[in-house]
């Protein structure tokens, strides 16, 4: 599905629309009114994040700037932009598909890697993505075991998903290539930050960048849409 996304020409958007399975269309309708950016919670805490500019670049063929940006990975998926958009552009789906496109170009794998465990350890093993296991020691101390609370409420100590159901979602995962994909991002080798040059450091995301995620090489991402200042004061 993503092979065709390798083409970075200015007709990228036209070619890429059918690949995205019809979820995303109508970017060319964009009025550049900026309502999306005005109400955006992600833009409130990351001032360089700008949905309007991303759509502008997408339609005008400046796709490399979008795919190699850090900003693409800052969307909150709140759908506020879709709710407020006068021409009904479903921007969160654009971000979703653009992230897949960015991954096909080798960007952003380190972020996906952090989330892969929820699919592998929870979704495919228990059939439930959020596990009852608690990592925060404060919560364990204060609230105790969630199974006890369930029991007190007269429910079974744990929600059970039948073995058959788990086998079925694993089968779906195997057949659709999701399992293969997860194997691909199996192991992470962390990037050695001591080798970093000041120029890269300036633009680098603050946390350590893995250079290689499983079998996939990741590239640096850049703040392509401005200086990443701001934070709580701007919210």
């Amino acid at each position, binding site marked *: *599905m993503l092979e065709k996304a390798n083409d970075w020409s200015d007709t990228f958007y036209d070619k890429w629309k059918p690949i995205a399975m019809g979820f995303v269309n109508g970017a060319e309708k964009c009025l550049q009114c900026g309502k999306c950016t005005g109400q955006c919670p992600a833009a409130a805490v990351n001032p360089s994040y700008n949905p309007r500019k991303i759509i502008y670049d997408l339609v005008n063929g400046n796709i490399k700037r979008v795919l190699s940006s850090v900003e693409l990975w800052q969307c909150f998926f709140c*759908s506020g932009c879709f709710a407020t958009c006068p021409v009904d552009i479903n921007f969160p789906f654009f971000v*979703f598909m653009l992230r897949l496109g960015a991954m096909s170009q080798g960007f952003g794998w380190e972020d996906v890697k952090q989330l892969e465990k*929820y*699919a592998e350890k929870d*979704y495919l093993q228990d059939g439930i993505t959020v596990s009852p296991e608690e990592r925060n020691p404060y919560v364990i101390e204060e609230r105790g075991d969630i199974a006890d609370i369930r029991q007190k409420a007269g429910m079974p100590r744990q*929600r059970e998903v039948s073995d058959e159901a788990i086998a079925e979602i694993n089968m779906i995962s195997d*057949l659709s290539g*999701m399992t293969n994909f997860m194997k691909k991002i199996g192991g992470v080798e962390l990037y050695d930050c001591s080798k970093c040059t000041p120029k890269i450091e300036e633009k680098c995301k603050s946390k350590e960048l893995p250079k290689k995620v499983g079998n996939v090489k990741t590239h640096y991402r850049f703040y392509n849409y401005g200086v990443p200042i701001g934070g709580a004061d701007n*919210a």
Partner: protein
Amino acid sequence: MHKLDKLSGIREEIVADIPIPEEIFYFQSCVASNKYPGIESCTLDVLNKLGVKPFVSEDQTCCGGFVTFANVAAPTASMPAVARNISLAEEEGLDICAVCNGCWTFLNEFGHFMNGNDEVKESVNMMLNMMGREYKGESNIFHIGAMLYKLKDRIAENVERPLEGLKFATHYGCHYLGGGKYGAIDDAQHPSFIQELVEIMGGENVDYTASGECCGTGFTQVINDKEKSLDHSQMKLESVRDEADPDFVIVLCPYCLSQLDRMQQQLDYRRDVKLDIPIIHITQLAGLALGLPKERLAFDAHIGGQDRFKKALNKIGIDY
């Protein structure tokens, strides 16, 4: 509080289309089951009390929304998983009731997409036929908030514990009103149906500036970029504390509940921001008014606002 009748953007035609069934497929949510069991027990009890029998299936898995929007599963992988879950309800001939905004949007959006796209539906069914299932696209998906609004007359008849003297603020969350702006029962910018339910149950509504803002989870941002996520939650929660000072904040989505509740402790620990705000789900609100026992409400699982919980619940005669 604003005059509700003037501002109401509730879409009566969509509300009128919601059937009142005798039985409904209760779509279990991950967060509700494993972090806030009160949502699950209250949903079952509230639906039973209002004359709708919930049907629970052990074959139902997570909706798959998280792994999809975390880009671990491509739409080609999550589409069959969605179809599989919906087909479980179709086998029983039931409609689906989701308690989570995420589940609702994801099932609705992908379900609609398959219904309007025969090619995709066919390939999905090819996969499902291998495990002896079939997706037909017959079941409708309703949000529990919409169901409760539809059943508001029955709620009014059954209020056993009027919520007099309590102040309620609301947080509607993004993916019901915003993500599903054509399927939801209310306007995305000025929603008011929870306020109406609160009034029916005898409570008082309070408003605050950031009521329409996202909770701050940002789907995966809470994992990938926690500081930014905290920034946003702090802004939201401080607005609640300073402007509304409610006894409860009502949310439609367990994932919002988890964020707004758990981040209170994180904000205290990391930034020394003191917040004491009880966050509850809309089914727990209904459970309160319909007189469910405190074990079934299961407020023990909530982390933030325990002192406030005690005060507020004592006010309406629950020994907490």
